[in-house]
């Protein structure tokens, strides 16, 4: 297939095609289970039912979703809160309208044999991270534990894969629960010839350490939010998205298939694992999916202001203004969905137990 064909079909992201208000959603990475809810909403026609024709734009390593949004090339963007706050400081007028992931999905993983059971155990170790703004939870945790990130550990650039950890180049590696951690469990232990098990590793979970920062959220244009039509559209968009996420919660296999059909090449069991893990980040949502928890927000802002990285930089330098987030729209969406009988809290959600096949197949 020629390049333009594939991009446009990929860019179409399953756009309904039938009329509707055109809406563009910018993702922060390529198509994968992390974004299952949005793909499911398109696939299941949830957006169409709201009168929206949603086109999903994939991300790349240098695509910054929130600036794409701020430049007006997308109507909504999925972005991590600290990075989006940084962009706000640089003048990107964007507002968090729904905190889809209520929890952080980032881990620091090491071999159990290395004995890194707490953050202090990182002292003197080779600590891997991706950079790309994913390192602040780690730095906050180290700072809290009395380690100086720039001198007490060796910071190592980590690749997309986990070979560094497996080959012993890195002592503690960064991993998303829904992706890289699964890669570890899909890999074969050369000593036993069997797959690795969770028992082979110890993990530092920032949610438990207390330095978790808010991740995937839906961001909207602050300026356009003054406009009632855009407000309406935002509510509709959030309704469709939350229904999508509810669908992914209730039908993870189907959600997996939808993502695969969109061109993800990750293995089937891996994708299912990913959808399942992402569900854990969304559900249960006490006040309803997407509702921004003020405490979590404040913690994120605090860490973003106080934590210095290896260069001595913080993510943001001042308290974000009030326009940085609002629950108005997501609340309306939740209310309307509840009225329609959609379970928006997932109180009864219990994750599956996904068995990872070798290589994620």
């Amino acid at each position, binding site marked *: 297939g*020629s390049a333009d064909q594939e991009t446009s079909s990929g860019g179409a992201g399953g756009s309904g095609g039938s009329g509707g208000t055109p809406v563009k959603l910018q993702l922060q990475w390529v198509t994968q289970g992390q974004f299952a809810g949005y793909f499911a909403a398109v696939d299941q026609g949830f957006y169409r039912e709201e009168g929206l024709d949603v086109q999903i734009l994939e991300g790349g*390593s*240098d695509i910054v979703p929130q600036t794409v949004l701020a430049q007006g090339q997308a109507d909504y963007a999925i972005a991590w809160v600290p990075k989006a706050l940084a962009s706000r400081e640089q003048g990107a007028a964007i507002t968090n309208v729904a905190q889809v992931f209520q929890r952080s999905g980032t881990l620091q993983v090491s071999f159990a044999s290395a004995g890194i059971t707490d953050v202090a155990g990182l002292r003197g170790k080779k600590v891997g991270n991706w950079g790309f703004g994913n390192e602040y939870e780690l730095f906050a945790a180290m700072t809290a534990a009395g380690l100086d990130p720039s001198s007490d550990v060796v910071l190592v650039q980590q690749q997309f894969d986990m070979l560094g950890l497996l080959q012993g180049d890195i002592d503690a590696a960064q991993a998303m629960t829904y992706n890289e951690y699964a890669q*570890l469990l899909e890999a074969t232990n050369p000593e036993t010839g069997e797959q690795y098990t969770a028992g082979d590793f110890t993990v530092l979970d920032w949610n438990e350490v207390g330095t978790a920062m808010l991740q995937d959220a839906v961001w909207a244009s602050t300026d356009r939010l003054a406009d009632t039509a855009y407000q309406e559209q935002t509510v509709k968009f959030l309704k469709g998205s939350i229904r999508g996420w509810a669908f992914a919660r209730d039908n993870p296999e189907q959600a997996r298939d939808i993502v695969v059909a969109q061109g993800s090449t990750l293995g089937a069991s891996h994708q299912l694992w990913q959808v399942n893990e992402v569900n854990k980040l969304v559900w249960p949502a006490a006040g309803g999916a997407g509702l921004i928890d003020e405490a979590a927000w404040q913690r994120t802002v605090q860490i973003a202001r106080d934590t210095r990285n290896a260069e001595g930089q913080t993510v943001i330098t001042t308290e974000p203004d009030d326009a940085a987030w609002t629950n108005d729209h997501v609340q309306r969406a939740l209310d309307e969905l509840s009225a329609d009988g959609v379970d928006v809290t997932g109180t009864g959600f219990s994750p599956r137990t996904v068995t990872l096949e070798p290589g994620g197949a």
Partner: protein
Amino acid sequence: MTELLATARAERAAPVPGAPAGRLATALRRGAMALVGVAVLVLVWELYRALGPVQGVQVGGERLLPRADPRSMPGVVEVLRTLGRPEVSLPGSRTVGVAVLAAAGGTLLMAAGGWVLGSVVGIGLAVLMQRFRLVERGLLPYVVLSQTVPVIAIAPLVAGWGGRLQLTPALSWQPWMSVVVLSAYLAFCPVAVGMLRGLHATTGIARELFRSFAATGRQTLLGLRFPASLPFLAPALRLAAAQAVVGAIVAEISTGTRGGIGRLVLQYAQQATSAPGRLYAAILGAALLGLLASALVASLVAVLGVLVHRSGGPR
């Protein structure tokens, strides 16, 4: 000073370009030797895998010879096998090999666009720099330095501003166009530098001759400098082809554009923990793609050369 004439004479010793049989034989021989090269590489790889130390060789704390374990250096057979496996373990999935081929095709198209654009810009700049000494002084350092600005710094600009362009009412900016532009960004430099060198590579006598004819700048350019630059332009275009491929791949990753080998590398790299063979398969695809691009440009240049030669013009 006699450089130009000298090449011309030296190249006369080579087989006359007019003879088709000779050309075919040379092409065949070249292809065969390339295969020999690949075979040697494969052999060295496999031998090292079989005999090399699993933890490599460290000298003074730095590993100077690589590790030989299967995760670091997957076997050639394993990589080839990967090509035949389905990409996703769902029915109807295409094989990795097909995916690599399709992606290579996609990148080739975008790289071709970048090559053409970059070459045109590069030649234009070179002509400008040759015509105006001051422009050369002012611009040449920046042409070279432009290549030290990483794509990460300009990708958001290109993707961002491109995204706002409405080329025609029917055609808006497509993501692949960003890739083409970024690919051209890497391709134009060798062309500009090589072409400029070629435009300067005239003998003093020839330049004076044209001066004595009171030839206009354009006439000197077309009648003297252009023909004289051809021996320099040809390799520059080949370098540019390789750079265009690199640029296209980097830009695909950078902008997340689908349909090319860069995107595939990105995807497969994320799976490298458990299936390192896939990454190698994609890399193999990238390497072959680069070769193909260089070879295509080389044959294009050769064909043009023969055509021009037939017409009694520059060779």
